[in-house]
């Protein structure tokens, strides 16, 4: 295999890295608009701080655990600790035409946004200190191993033929299921179901969603790791699925609640982006329309189910990322075709029903592992630090109680 560096591929991956980097603060704005005004700064800080925290963790030990030389299909070795041996020559195991460090920093942005997604579940009530320690442990004990299973050379799920182009399993299922566990363990916010917890700034949420959509082109099209036709396919299906899911969520909410919700359109777009993530390099635009439609429907009803069960996953992380991730992973097994990507596999609609089984196995394993490990980590953090702020601080708001700074002076 050729290992010559290609300038166009390298430029595209660096741009895609910057696009994915923008998604984490965009997530902060998406979530920030959805909380009450007394908690907006703390919510944005969760995402902003995460970008910094995981950027350093990734360089020191995260990257080698996820992508380092394999140990039993389960974890990468410590050979690349502190990026020793991760140089400017390509690593053909992962990307033959870009410097190894370009691949590493691109993956760093995925590692950063994944635990940031979980913060929507415990918004408005978690201690900042507990958030920091939980996030560091979760990135190390959940994200890094699962990334190795699915994407690492020698990873056991990769060996079974699981298709996950840009992180449906690694990013969205792990974070979505962990969010549900976190919401259940932290308990409901004070006043949940009794007082209004409506979004304090829907415009901020819409802006955050638009920035996420923009950044997602880097997330999915960048995952081609080249600047060629596969990146173009991923770009097209990403936009198509996001659009179709935004339309569908709006339609379903219009029929169910007699109003075409703007925040619903934003949530729908994100659900579509989640669902197309594992499929982006394996399906065509017609399948993307079906995947987007499914995402808009199943994620909307997952939100309704959450309300009915009175689970305070504050910002619908499980419903959008968990359920959207499940749907996307299974849909990849339905609609994948080697006509799009000869390195992939065919799905059920193209004569290979076995791919659905492999995808379901990955869904189950990643969900169970992420959920169980999250429960254990939260128990540990609660034991030593305490997960929740005291009642008085929760009533006062986390901006004042955790950061000593009001978000707005107006």
């Amino acid at each position: 295999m050729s290992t010559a560096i290609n300038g166009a591929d390298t430029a595209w991956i660096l741009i895609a890295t910057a696009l994915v980097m923008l998604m984490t603060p965009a997530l902060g704005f998406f979530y920030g608009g959805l909380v009450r005004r007394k908690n907006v700064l703390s919510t944005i800080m969760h995402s902003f701080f995460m970008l910094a925290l995981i950027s350093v963790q990734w360089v020191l030990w995260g990257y080698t655990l996820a992508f380092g030389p394999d140990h039993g299909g389960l974890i990468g070795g410590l050979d690349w600790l502190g990026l020793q041996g991760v140089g400017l020559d390509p690593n053909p195991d992962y990307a033959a035409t870009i410097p190894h460090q370009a691949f590493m920093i691109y993956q760093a942005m995925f590692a950063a946004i994944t635990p940031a997604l979980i913060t929507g579940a415990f918004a408005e009530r978690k201690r900042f200190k507990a958030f920091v320690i939980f996030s560091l442990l979760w990135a190390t004990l959940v994200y890094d191993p699962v990334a190795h299973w699915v994407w690492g050379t020698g990873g056991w799920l990769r060996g079974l033929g699981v298709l996950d182009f840009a992180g449906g399993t690694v990013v969205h299922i792990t974070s979505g299921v962990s969010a549900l566990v976190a919401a259940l363990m932290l308990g409901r916010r004070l006043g949940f179901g009794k007082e209004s917890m409506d979004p304090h700034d829907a415009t901020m949420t819409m802006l955050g969603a638009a920035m996420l959509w923009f950044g997602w082109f880097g997330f999915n099209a960048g995952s081609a790791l080249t600047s060629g036709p596969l990146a173009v396919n991923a770009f097209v299906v990403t936009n198509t699925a996001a659009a179709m899911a935004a339309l569908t969520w709006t339609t379903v909410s219009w029929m169910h609640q007699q109003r075409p919700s703007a925040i619903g359109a934003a949530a729908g777009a994100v659900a579509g982006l989640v669902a197309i993530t594992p499929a982006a390099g394996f399906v065509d635009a017609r399948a993307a329309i079906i995947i987007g439609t499914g995402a808009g429907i199943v994620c909307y009803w997952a939100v309704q189910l959450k309300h009915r069960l009175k689970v305070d996953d504050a910002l619908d992380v499980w419903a959008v990322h968990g359920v959207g991730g499940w749907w996307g992973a299974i849909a990849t097994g339905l609609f994948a075709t080697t006509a799009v990507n000869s390195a992939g596999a065919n799905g059920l609609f193209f004569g290979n029903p076995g791919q659905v089984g492999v995808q379901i196995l990955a869904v189950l394993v990643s969900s169970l592992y992420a959920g169980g490990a999250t429960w254990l980590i939260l128990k540990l953090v609660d034991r030593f630090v305490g997960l929740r702020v005291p009642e008085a601080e929760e009533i006062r708001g986390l901006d004042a109680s955790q950061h000593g700074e009001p978000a707005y002076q107006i």
Partner: protein
Amino acid sequence: MLLTIALICFLAQVLAWVMLPATPRPATLVAARESAPREALAVE
């Protein structure tokens, strides 16, 4: 086959938009606006 399903997914929604009634403003939003301080609503 995928094209047929995709077309149905989209056109069914277009039909729904035509059929759905005009949207009344939710009562909760009206109440929130009317209870807000006048200066908060003022335009400089």
